[in-house]
């Protein structure tokens, strides 16, 4: 296989800044447009059990990152196609919430399968290049144990930063995962 060097350079990233909501969740700033809600808002559609994904984002001083915007990209329960995208702004406590479906397993290299997961992308003031991470599920221990991405994280304490904890309240299932940008229990972020 031959391939010339890429002749163009990727446009460099810049921070989304503190006013990211104007462009990405404009209704929060009173900027509404007819017929169209904020893109990625509202329940994420797909096949599978309804779940809530939530967590808080903290900086290196354990302060909530209240200005962050988080995007989610995932498969539905069928797992063989990716279909669901969502976008939310964190609230004053740094909390993000997605109303979505639990994903199924997806193909991994070498004919293996990945454990169910969603991918998260985080932008905010002070983040120069958007941060990619994954959220896995703590009730998928066997699948998690065979997942090639989780197995790249050699330190088990670091691996835990990618695995959300299940809870049930009033018949609703919630998975919770806090994200720490820096410091103790710093979340694993990926160069994808």
């Amino acid at each position: 296989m031959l391939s010339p060097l890429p002749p163009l350079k990727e446009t460099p990233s810049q921070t989304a800044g503190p006013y990211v909501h104007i462009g990405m969740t404009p209704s929060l700033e009173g900027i509404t447009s007819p017929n169209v809600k904020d893109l990625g808002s509202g329940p994420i559609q797909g096949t599978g059990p309804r779940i809530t994904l939530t967590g808080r984002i903290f900086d290196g001083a354990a302060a909530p990152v209240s200005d962050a915007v988080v995007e989610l990209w995932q498969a539905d329960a069928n797992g063989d196609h990716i279909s669901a995208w969502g976008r939310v702004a964190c609230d004053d406590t740094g909390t993000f919430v997605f109303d979505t479906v639990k994903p199924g397993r997806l193909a991994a290299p070498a004919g293996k399968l990945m454990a169910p997961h969603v991918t998260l992308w985080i932008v905010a003031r002070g983040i120069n290049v958007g941060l990619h991470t994954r959220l896995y599920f703590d009730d998928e221990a066997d699948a998690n144990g065979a997942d090639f991405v989780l197995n790249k994280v050699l330190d088990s304490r670091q691996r835990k930063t990618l695995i959300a904890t299940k809870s049930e309240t009033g018949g609703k299932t919630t998975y919770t995962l806090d994200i720490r940008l820096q410091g103790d229990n710093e979340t694993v972020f990926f160069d994808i």
Partner: protein
Amino acid sequence: MTTLPLIGEEGAFYQRDRAWHPPANTPGYKSTTLRAPRHALLSLAGQTKSELTGPTFNHSILNPLDNDLIRNFSQGGGEAIGQRMIVHGQVLDENVRPVRGTLVEFWQANAGGRYRHKLEGYQAALDPNFGGCGRAITDDNGCYYFRTIKPGAYPWPNGGNDWRPAHIHFSVFGHAFAQRLITQMYFEGDPMIWQDPIALSIPDRAAVEQLIAKLDRHNSTPMDALAYRFDIVLRGRRSTLFENRPEGN
């Protein structure tokens, strides 16, 4: 089952050149200090559907005025105040192939440099007819355009008296989550670019220059709007020399 590519194999996105992007911690931009991960990013080495696919958007998400910031927040027919201009360009990948049908979002301050945002602390006045956001989907050549007013420079609480150069924020999706990009566009000839801690978070001057839109007199509209051209390059995928996928690579 689809074969999933390793980095460097056919179908995989080229590795991101992290030296071309700003590092996570750039002390001149103080907000990065507590928000920069201390650990190295973990390379996935293999790309999966989670990275090789991404959301797609069709024209049903667009309103007719989404690419006209002069009128898309109009109150009772009024237009935004300021230097009228068209911003346009082509979204390409590193292989110089147009990125067709991709969503481009943009947001900016008004002509006085004031953002319509609850956290904004600058004294400049809000423009009642200017919201400051818009979106477009690239055409078959990867081209986008919108009409707006030139944003003003503005002060920000970084140093005691730091001012940001005029700029427009861009968000681009591409065709895969691996291509997701947020950046900022600056204006040709602005001396404030070279004293801006955010622009200078990018170490390579040539990379900063890639963010500077060029004045485009050709596409200016008489008695209406100047034009600036801003091309955007997303990551490209490796393919064989004989491959020519209609959707691009």
